[in-house]
């Protein structure tokens, strides 16, 4: 197998791993919305913390993106 095609396959595999972070963020948001439904008073604070949590969960996907550009 040539080097160029192996590189492209590796790049493709790196892009696939970002899908898992979407699953994690979906679970996070589902729990946050459920908590907002139970206790509508803390909606604003909970939303801010949820955004921060989403940014944290996104970070492994960003590592994969950086690895994609490095390859």
């Amino acid at each position: 197998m040539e080097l160029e095609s192996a590189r492209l396959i590796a790049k493709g595999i790196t892009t696939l791993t970002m899908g898992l972070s979407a699953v994690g963020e979906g679970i996070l948001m589902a729990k946050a919305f459920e908590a907002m439904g139970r206790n509508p008073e803390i909606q604003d604070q909970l939303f801010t913390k949820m955004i921060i949590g989403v940014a944290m969960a996104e970070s492994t996907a960003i590592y994969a993106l950086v690895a994609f550009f490095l390859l």
Partner: protein
Amino acid sequence: MGLLRIQSEIPGIGPDTVFTIAGYPVANSTLMIVLAIFFTIGVAFIMRKKTQLIPGKVQNFAEGAYEAVFNLINSVTGNTKVTAKIFPLVGTLFLFILLSNTEGLLPIIGEVTYKGTPIFRSATADFNTTFALAFGMVLLIQIASIKDSGIFAYIGKFFQFKQVWVGFRTSIKDGFMALIMFAIGLLDIVSEMAKVVSLSLRLFGNMYAGQVLATVILAGFAYGLPAIWMSLSVLSAVVQTLVFALLVTAYYSISVSNDETEAETVAVNSN
């Protein structure tokens, strides 16, 4: 090329050297760092000179921003004294990173070239800047922890020999629990390094990927579509500053709080 697309080259991962001063290379992101520093110091000086008792519009906005950041940091640490200690550093970091993240959206960034390399590049889209910031912050947290509890307590956090000794003296089960905590203490050393890597890579990855994708989208279709990506970029810039500042605060409050809040609650209880 045509009217529908704007082709430009994708910026590389490393910054390009613009010129050298006495054999020391100056990269294009360094110029933007200097601009951000001038802006931050300029804001500080202007705010100091023009404060009145009844605030005008600009001072009102600045006071509102100050209070917002203070409440944010206070909600993480939960203790006003710790917040007062860390607030000057984290507030300035907030301002600097916010400015550096949104610099990448100015249209002048990719265009002005000097001998073929673009002169300006967003400061945080360069791994050197984010690594320096993250490494400096983690080093500062270690130094603050040593200053707070002494060097033997600091080393005792990682190598928990005393707990193993005490654990085996109480019972065998406690002893094995203490052995597991010893292994976790050793892993804490690795986790400190992981903090540096994760902080720097998160900020760098978001900003750099935003820039590359903006170039790619502009090369695809230049009307309407880049506006969506630009608004997402602004949102991501603000969220990334929030995450960086809050994480630094959280790490600081964890490493210092073991001593300080206990002393404070003891003082409160005895009064």
